[in-house]
């Protein structure tokens, strides 16, 4: 009965039970691509182009007047030592954190790659740091690093590794490493997850064949596991590398680029120029420069390691 009524309302007596607007049943790609494309244009492409446009203006902080002068900010950037210091800090931060996370991630994944009882729970527990907001992680470690009451500092004092006269984050030589350790704590589980997914997808037979062929576990790891995982490792390095390159939250919360500019990364410097100096055109220039650096480094990596998506 109900069906008959709907058919009746449809008016054409066809088999269509629901009369949806035509654009919702379209087989043309445009209506389906429109929402995502619009988002991409509004929140991705437009801001980048606007930043680029902005970078061609010279701003007078006193009068707040912006004047078109395409070369001003870019020549300023090239002459700005703080930018080049930030490049060094960013590259150091990215590469050191990446190597530690990669090696640790692989080792932990190897340990957790087992079907024995309890390992599923361990794998789940392993991902817990990922659910903590990065700013909160930064605050947590700020407290633990604190020179007077922080637990990490006290353990290091007791071990004689650190002197109370030179607190971790206030010391130019330890501040960057201290921030890297926070990143490692939070993001190694991500690496573990990717590596575990890769390890668990490896076929078992070649390893049995290798065992019979005379390979020890260590030989099997270097001659089979690593080459078979190379694509996944490259992908993990790429994803984490780009992520590390835009480090902002830990630096902002923990050291605010200090002491001095010892932990000032490119994004942190961009933030400082933008929010503190209110020099929006120059901040945009540094941001575009950061983007270009990431693009170049990532593409060189993709070329060298033949990453395919």
């Amino acid at each position, binding site marked *: 009965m109900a069906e008959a009524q709907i058919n009746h309302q449809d008016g054409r007596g066809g088999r269509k039970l629901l009369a949806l607007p035509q654009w919702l049943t379209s087989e043309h790609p445009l209506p389906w691509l429109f929402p995502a494309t619009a988002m991409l244009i509004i929140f991705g492409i437009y801001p980048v182009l606007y930043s680029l446009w902005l970078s061609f203006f010279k701003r007078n902080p006193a009068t707040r007047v912006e004047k078109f002068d395409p070369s001003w900010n870019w020549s300023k950037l090239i002459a700005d030592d703080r930018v080049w210091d930030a490049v060094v800090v960013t590259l150091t931060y990215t590469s050191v954190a990446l190597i530690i996370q990669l090696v640790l991630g692989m080792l932990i994944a190897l340990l957790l790659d087992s079907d024995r009882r309890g390992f599923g729970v361990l794998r789940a527990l392993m991902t817990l740091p990922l659910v903590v907001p990065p700013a909160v992680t930064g605050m947590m470690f700020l407290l633990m690093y604190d020179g007077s009451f922080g637990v990490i500092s006290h353990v290091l004092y007791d071990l004689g590794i650190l002197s109370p006269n030179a607190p971790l984050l206030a010391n130019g030589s330890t501040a960057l490493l201290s921030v890297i350790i926070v990143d490692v704590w939070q993001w190694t589980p991500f690496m573990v997850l990717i590596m575990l997914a890769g390890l668990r997808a490896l076929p078992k037979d070649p390893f049995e*064949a290798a*065992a019979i062929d005379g390979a020890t576990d260590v030989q099997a790891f270097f*001659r089979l596991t690593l080459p078979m995982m190379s694509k996944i490792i490259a992908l993990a390095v790429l994803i984490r590398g780009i992520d590390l390159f835009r480090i902002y939250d830990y630096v902002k919360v923990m050291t605010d680029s200090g002491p001095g500019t010892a932990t000032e990364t490119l994004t942190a410097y961009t933030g400082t120029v933008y929010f503190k100096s209110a020099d929006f055109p120059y901040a945009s220039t540094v941001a575009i420069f950061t983007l270009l650096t990431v693009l170049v480094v990532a593409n060189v990596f993709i070329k060298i390691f033949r990453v395919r998506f």
Partner: protein
Amino acid sequence: MASVNVEKLVKKYGDLEVLHSIDLDVEDGQFVVLLGPSGCGKSTLLRTIAGLESSTSGDISIGERNVNGMHPKDRNIAMVFQNYALYAHMKVRDNMAFSMHLNKTPAARIEERVNWAASILSLEPYLDRYPKELSGGQRQRVAMGRAIVRNPDVFLFDEPLSNLDAKLRVQMRTEIKELHKRLKTTTVYVTHDQIEAMTMADVVVIMRDGHIEQMGSPMEIYDNPANLFVAEFIGSPGMNLLAGKIVEDSGKMICRVGELDLPLPEQMNISAGQDVLYGIRPEHLIPSETGVKATINVVEPTGPETHLFCHMSGHDVCAVSRERMNWKADEVILVEPTLEYVHLFDAQTKEAIKRKT
């Protein structure tokens, strides 16, 4: 080369016992096929010999060495897997040389061994290709090449032909047999394909539910199945089995199946009134001038022979003839069991009833 001896081998997964006190002796140079349906434990037995599975109790020796608990790499065995298990990121050459790279064999020796294996298996043109650039049959040959370069004591094959198409399977079967003839290496071969077992084996070991049901040469097993399981498992089309009773009829023992009286060979260890299964292979149930009436249901010509699926007073049987007669469905013919090939099985124990000697 070496013999393989398995003694009272038990394998348990938790509480589940999958191999029950297996005894198996493979002589030096023998080609032994482990045959059985899925889940009978044949692969587990092979993998335990390889050291890929640990045994729960019992002993395994290869040659003079007891290999219990020994790592696979120390057993000097080579194994060919069902899905080849090649190293996808290595060229064919490196796949075959892998074991020698590991034990640091001099490069010249590696080259010589790989070329030798490649020539035996006709793999020379493919040495610099990757496994993904090869066909299934070529990959299987690479897997065999990887096994033979090492000159192992024992070859272990785990259903190596299951992933190949029918024609290639027949071809590879012959190649493996030739290889064995040439190298004379002790071989244990697992399959669920009875034709592979029959054609390749010196000794067939029939397994079921973690037990060895029967061991013997292919023809021994075919002609004298020890029990109903073996009789049904070997042979295609399968042995005709008719449930009947032994009756004494004017001084002679016969088997009464429904209204049918089937003749029996002399000297059987039977007594009147005994419940039995009367077994006769299709090729020993021959259309002839005399015998039992049967109505043809389906005629299946296979080329060399013709299979006749018939009703014989309520029972379905298959008869095979090599004659080229123009049989038709629903035709009534006479079929005659060849007496010397009649098998009797006890209806309770399912064991074969032996002849008096």
